[in-house]
């Protein structure tokens, strides 16, 4: 990765490489914006590279130079999203793809390591997540350590890349991908309502879920408008619910199931579950694939077909 970045910068193919750098804890990374060849050594790749970096591209939309970005499989769907929405121009991006065995969100995986323990290395194999620390190697079953989205990953190999940094990884059959959604669907209405009310009332309206989302790219978001005021600033169950349902509908058909909203949420609201429900319904209704997985398939709710059997009425 470092070599690829160095080469791209050296040959002035790109003016910027967006990748990952070591974070303030061994189990965190932070986005890195590399502009000089000499800085490329800051780049890292390890199982803690959870962040999706694709959305940062829109900040460089007006720059004269090309930007290279590191993407995992799921992140490539976000990139497709941005390309299809004309937020990013294909000819201005160099895609460094990483076929991915899964990543670990240290916040969610509750790794049982004492604070301050030095982590020497981490890796994901077919069946395990291995963490080398000063006090020995910790092994967790893959299913327990990995992010929920990685357990049923549909695109471990980026769907779009100019260069792939490893051998392709085959997708596992994802029969259970919507198991949790089905579970919630099976509940009686009152239980579902109480479940979501319980979560929505806790929302801080910090908008991290929106700001991190590759499908949320509106320059002026409805939730920031004061006139007309679609959702009041007040934090209460009613306004919070309005916020969540409107957002779910705004990203319907465009949400690429990257799970970043849920990862960012400081109060653990199961946002991916909400958005997965919409993905599942749209797949069933329109027979489409997960948004972003095919560059030639436009979002189901963002295109029309003359042979559409339904009338507009």
């Amino acid at each position, binding site marked *: 990765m470092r070599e690829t970045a160095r080469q791209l910068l050296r040959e002035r193919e790109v003016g910027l490489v967006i990748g990952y750098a070591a*974070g*303030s*804890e061994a189990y*965190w*990374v*932070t*986005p890195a*914006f590399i502009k000089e060849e000499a800085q490329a050594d800051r780049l890292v790749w390890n199982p803690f590279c959870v*962040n999706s970096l694709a959305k*940062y591209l829109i*900040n460089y939309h007006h720059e004269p130079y090309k930007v290279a970005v590191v993407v995992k499989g799921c992140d490539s769907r976000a990139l497709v999203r941005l390309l299809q929405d004309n937020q990013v121009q294909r000819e201005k991006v160099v895609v460094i793809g990483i076929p991915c065995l899964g990543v670990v969100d240290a*916040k969610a995986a*509750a790794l049982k390591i004492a*604070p*301050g323990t030095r982590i020497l290395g981490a890796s994901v194999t077919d069946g395990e997540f291995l963490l080398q620390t000063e006090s020995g190697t910790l092994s967790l079953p893959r299913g327990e350590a990995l992010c929920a989205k990685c357990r049923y990953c549909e695109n471990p190999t980026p769907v779009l890349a100019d260069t792939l940094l490893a051998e392709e990884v085959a997708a596992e059959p994802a029969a259970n991908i919507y198991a949790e959604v089905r579970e919630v669907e099976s509940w009686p209405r009152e239980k579902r309502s109480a479940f979501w009310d*319980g*979560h929505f009332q*806790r929302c*801080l*309206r*910090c*908008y*991290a879920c929106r*700001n*991190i989302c590759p499908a949320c790219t509106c320059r002026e978001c409805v939730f*920031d408008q*004061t006139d007309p005021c679609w959702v*009041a*600033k*007040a*934090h*209460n169950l009613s306004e919070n619910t309005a916020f969540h349902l409107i957002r779910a509908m705004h990203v319907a058909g465009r949400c690429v199931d990257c799970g*970043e909203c849920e*990862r*960012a949420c*400081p*109060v*653990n609201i199961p946002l991916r579950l909400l958005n997965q429900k919409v993905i599942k319904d749209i797949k069933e209704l329109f027979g489409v694939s997960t948004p972003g997985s095919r560059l030639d398939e436009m979002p189901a709710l963002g295109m029309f077909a003359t042979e559409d059997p339904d009338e507009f009425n």
Partner: protein
Amino acid sequence: MSVRDFLLTREGLHSWLSRLARDYPLIAPVEEEKGVITFKQVGGPQEIVFDCAPSTLPPKEWFLPSTEELFAFSTAGGGITLQEPPGPKERVLFGLHPCDVRALLALDPVFGGTYPDPYYLGRRKATIIVALSCTKPGPYCFCPAVGGDPVVAAGADLLLTESGSSFAVKAMTSRGEEIIQRYPGHFAPDEEGRGERARQELAGQLAGMFAFLPDLRGVKEFLDGHFELPYWEEVASRCLGCGICTYTCPTCHCFDIFDQSWDGARGLRARCWDSCMFSQFTRMAGGHNPRPTQKERVRNRFLHKLKYHQDRYGLGGCVGCGRCVAKCPVNIDIRRIIGDLKELASHG
């Protein structure tokens, strides 16, 4: 020893908390959702989480609610009538860590200065604060680096420190003493200075337990002379401009005031948390925005924490609770920022 020191057994603590919950609204840390600890009114000690260092969200909601009605208005019968909501009832806030108490001390001059804010001050006055010494810092805590003390919570009414199978209790204010007198039979006077020894011992143990203590010396002086730094661009390029770091911070206190009315004839005026990290925060009527990019916004947040609050009130704007560190989705870590600024300072 002083009559302000008492001892409380574990059972005594539980029965005292049960009594408190009956006599006052008792607010304490609870696990609202798996992994999310917040301050809520509780029915008794069984709901309380005792070993959270620190809670996911700070207790500031109880002083500066995320949405607070200031008054209701109505034009019924001609003219305008205003109605203020009832003031807060006396209540007990239990289980604050020393950093959270210190955060309240940092907020006090903001709301109690030239223009006293009756809403905040009313809530502050109505609250009896029972603090709990930390027995183990959280993974991102760094209170000693910003002048905090994880054991003694100056500013609390009562301080509880776990010591073996019991708790040492120190009345820090006359209000604290009154509370103890109101519940005779629960507290035994600590005549041998066990509490003091327990606190000192704990302080000694804790000193080595902080994973990462940034060195703040010289950082403010450096910032005094360097408003423009290319460094802020680097931080801003990563930042999402969300509200996590400000909303989880016990000392952040920006708010926005708005009116809500469905028919124009009746409605209410309220205030609501706002964040300097939001792009609309400084946008004025007419569209001008004096902090046009995330760079200015990020800089504002860190300068507020490390410089402005100090300039204005002589108090640190950051109490080292590490909540923003724990929750930032892109790992913008104030401990690292301090370290980086220090490094920049030493390179001139």
